[in-house]
């Protein structure tokens, strides 16, 4: 897999449902971040999880990190129409300066 692959590529859910997006990566990382991008806009930082953390919460967001499987998931609970956006994981390889975004999951929340 590439550094920073996400699935699904697209996700459509009803308002009130939970949305789960996954990110897999190839090499060791220092931390992993999730960003959101509304159509035609810049990216907005959501949450950062360090390599020594397994789970982190922020409001309706829950992020997990499994360094043994080299994967992370972003859960949005009780989704709202305003959550409609693309979501990207972002990471820096340990020992490297290269910064990498995942390919993103396009989330559509239907009112």
């Amino acid at each position, binding site marked *: 897999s590439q550094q920073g692959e996400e699935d699904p590529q697209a996700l459509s859910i009803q308002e009130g449902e939970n949305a789960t997006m996954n990110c897999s990566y190839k090499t060791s990382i220092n931390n992993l971040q999730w*960003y959101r991008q509304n159509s035609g806009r810049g990216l907005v*930082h959501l949450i950062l999880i360090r390599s020594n953390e397994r789970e982190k919460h922020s409001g309706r967001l829950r992020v997990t990190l499994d360094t043994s499987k080299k994967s992370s998931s972003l859960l949005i609970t009780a989704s709202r129409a305003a959550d409609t956006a693309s979501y990207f994981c972002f990471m820096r390889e340990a020992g490297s300066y290269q*910064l990498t975004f995942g390919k993103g999951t396009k989330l559509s929340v239907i009112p």
Partner: protein
Amino acid sequence: EPEVTQTPSHQVTQMGQEVILRCVPISNHLYFYWYRQILGQKVEFLVSFYNNEISEKSEIFDDQFSVERPDGSNFTLKIRSTKLEDSAMYFCASSPRGRDQPQHFGDGTRLSIL
């Protein structure tokens, strides 16, 4: 809340011309970045800048590209002799401290090469 601003929002340029994209990072931030996003593709890292010099750059950031902080507020990306494949959204970002910190992004400049 302070934000990163980018100008122009849309730039149309003839192939072979030089273009300068401008960014004003958040004032107390120390690290600055440029990324690009070709339509329908993922966001790609171009370059990071700290203490008035390039700290890291990707393979994409070749001799065609240069960055500059000409004064205390602006951060520019120059693309010399533009090519059709340079057409993309270009995002500027800044962070208060190191590269492992959350970054604040501008809304981007859409560059269209004709």
